């Protein structure tokens, strides 16, 4: 692929990424929403995070690894408990990295 086509591809990617990011906020922020819709939207963060977490833990490499030696699944348990207890992002990420790196070093 020549450089010009690559740059055009990136420009296209930027456009199709930006429009869905921007249009709903721009269209909806200037008006009062139906209270039911507003309540539904308040559930979106929990739904998005949960929906993204499952594949990132169960299929970290793109294919499903639902076995006992899925390290991410085990590491997720103490991380989530710590997160519920402390609400410290930094602590949770540090614990996660430490656990995964440690187990990989030992195994």
């Amino acid at each position: 692929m020549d450089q010009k086509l690559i740059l055009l591809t990136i420009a296209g990617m930027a456009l199709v990424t930006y429009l869905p990011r921007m249009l709903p906020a721009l269209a909806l922020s200037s008006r009062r929403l139906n209270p039911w819709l507003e309540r539904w939207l308040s559930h979106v963060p929990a739904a998005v995070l949960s929906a993204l977490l499952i594949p990132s833990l169960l299929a970290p490499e793109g294919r499903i690894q639902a076995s006992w030696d899925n390290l991410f699944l085990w590491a997720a348990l103490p991380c989530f408990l710590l997160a519920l207890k402390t609400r410290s992002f930094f602590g949770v990420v540090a614990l996660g990295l430490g656990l995964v790196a440690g187990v990989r070093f030992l195994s």
Partner: protein
Amino acid sequence: MESVQTLPPASAERPWPEILSGMRQALPIVLGFVPVGFAYGVLALKAGLPALPAALMSVFVFAGSAQFIAVGLLAAGAPAVTVIVTTFVVNLRHLLMSAALAPHLRQWSRPGVAWLCFQLTDETFALHATRFARGETSKAETLAVNATAQAAWVAGSVLGILCGELIGDVKPLGLDFALPAMFLALLAGQVGSRPRVATALASAAFSLLFLALGFGQWGVIAACVLGATFGTGVESWTRN
């Protein structure tokens, strides 16, 4: 006679405390983005993408998973249209996030909203959703979170592009677990009430089902819509 000077509001004149606070709040995202951006840079170079376009993608697209997929497709010789359509599908979930932030942005100017949305990612969204729910909608702080996050992403990418040859694997450092760990931390902050727990569980169950069925990115979007609807239903039902 004394001349009385009226001072402008501190926030307009000196936004620095808010900017610094935003940068501080973005730290966990930085911790996740630098290594993942690094991994992207290494992969992009190995896939045969020239250094400059690889870095520009992090500046103008700024979407983790889509960038990884696009680099893979480009390496496999996929046509440009395929790469762009795939990117669109992978990033369509931001539609929901953008809509979810909208009710909190009534005081914002339209250019402000447009700028905020350029740097809307899963991670910045989750952080903003939590902050906005607490009433923290300061523009300087919010945009500082975003700028810090993207700076980390671009810096990580550039580092990966520059020294990707030296480091073959980020796995021994556990860096590939940085983003899942952050999702866990952010999710813990979102499940404070029973209906939210219902949303998270339903969304996880649907996501698992669709993953097993091989729905790919559509599965994430569908699981999110179904999970949020279920949680809203539980909320209405428990209220009455």
